[in-house]
């Protein structure tokens, strides 16, 4: 019976790990056009970050706070590490930053050049990087750590349109 209970606990633990990773979507070839189509006509903030990018990890909780403060923000987080990372660790970081419920993606294809090219041919891979896309599809790139006041002002401007 003791063994029985142990096994049950083990099963639950395995099941829980599976459920936690389920939220993270795989970003591979063709994902970018699907993602853009899904948000077409809606002002959207897309933030590229990486587990292997130290300034990204410092900035992440600020995005978590902004996300809580602005329910009007459609936020998409994409982990764009040049070498695909363990999804459990990606999820763990997102949860700690208060972003576990955001729309989350992670690069899972080692052909990093191709994924970056689909997003923007001129993107050399530097992180963090934020894209503000208005309802007409016009993109504003914020390279490096974003000035969140700028993001707030952009969100306000989208409401007035």
């Amino acid at each position, binding site marked *: 019976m003791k063994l029985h209970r142990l096994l049950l606990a083990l099963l639950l633990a395995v099941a829980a790990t599976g459920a936690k990773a389920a939220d993270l979507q795989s970003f591979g070839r063709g994902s970018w056009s699907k993602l853009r189509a899904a948000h077409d006509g809606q002002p959207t903030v897309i933030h590229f970050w990486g587990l292997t*990018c130290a300034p990204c990890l410092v900035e992440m909780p600020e995005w978590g706070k902004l996300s809580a403060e602005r329910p009007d923000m459609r936020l998409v987080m994409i982990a764009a590490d040049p070498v695909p990372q363990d999804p459990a660790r990606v999820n763990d970081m997102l949860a700690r930053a208060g972003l576990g419920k955001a729309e989350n993606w992670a690069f899972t294809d080692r052909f990093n050049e191709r994924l970056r090219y689909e997003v923007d041919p001129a993107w050399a891979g530097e992180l963090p990087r934020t894209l503000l896309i208005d309802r007409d599809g016009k993109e504003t790139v914020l390279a490096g750590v974003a000035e969140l006041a700028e993001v707030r002002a952009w969100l306000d401007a989208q409401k007035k349109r």
Partner: protein
Amino acid sequence: MRALLAFAAFLLLAGPAGAQHQHQHGKPAAATPEAFTATPAFGPDGTLWLARAMADRIVVVRSTDLGKTFSEPVAVTPEPMNLDWGPDARARIVVDPKGGLVVTFAIFQDRNFNGRAFYARSKDNGASFGKPQPITADATSQRFETAAVDPSTGRVFATWLDKRNGPKARAAGKPYPGAALAYAWEDGEAGFGPTSIALDNTCECCRLGVAFAGPGRPAVVFRNIFPGSIRDHGVVTFKDEKTPGPVRRVSADEWKIEACPHHGPSLAILPDGSYHVAWFTDGSARKGLFYARADNGDTPFGAPRALSTARRQPARPYILANGTALHLVWKEFDGTKSTVRWQVSHDSGRQWSEPRTVADTEDASDHPLLVAHAGRAYLSWLTQADGYRLIPLEDQP
């Protein structure tokens, strides 16, 4: 009970194995990031040696027919190790003039990317390797270890990025950005001798480039941290085996970044004493891939020349002196394929041939590398789709 046990066993077995294929069903794979590199070196007898990092182990293979066929792999790492899988890290191999082999590589010690650099030697012409030994006694962190054989003396020089001075500085209340450029020389049977620090506060996450300016005089190119967090490139040339010279800046690209670019430079020195560097930058003064030359070890570098355009993602340059010829390759992406572009110069880097594509692939690939033997230069490239290729470059002297 029995059914439950079977089900539990199934789940546990399915965990890691299933995860390998999850990406096909739209879920990220749970695998540890995987090292995927092949680094070449020719032996004095024309044998091509390759150090291959494969997931959690390193092997060496050899070819006596210029890469057409390879021997069975010989293990360098006796047990699985948490290899440094960083985008600019690689296991390397050098062959000394007596045919002795030295493999260098790094592992991650923890989740904060602190590394430990190792070397392993073979004294039986690659039939076996001794147990890997740390390259230095200090255990703080070492990465991007690079060994090179002094062509004049045959002595092996090793240099790497070392974080030992960071904790000391911070304990004294001083900031310590980046890492230090450390070096050691081969010391007979004992492996590498004592470690010295050539320079503090270099960038900590990019590969190094090494060439020789003369007997006992290595030159190292690296991404430095110039005042104001500017991560541009510098060259240090040794005055003798124990005396590193001053930093000579290659280019003022003004790349101010508090992060790791993961893009290291490449260096070659011609018999006329001229220096040749290729590098990647995303600075405010220039962005993309560049090449510059200097007449000798004392003069400033000339104006950078852009290689390709930013919209083709040019990256991972490699430059090699082969006699009086200079070969330069880099990788770029055309929307479908990664291509290796090649240029050659026969006048000390002043004029170059038109860039040509010498190889391409439609999936992930290692950095393109160059290697030479008996007067001929070759592209050495590992791709996921085609495996390893050694491609002779044309237009040889």
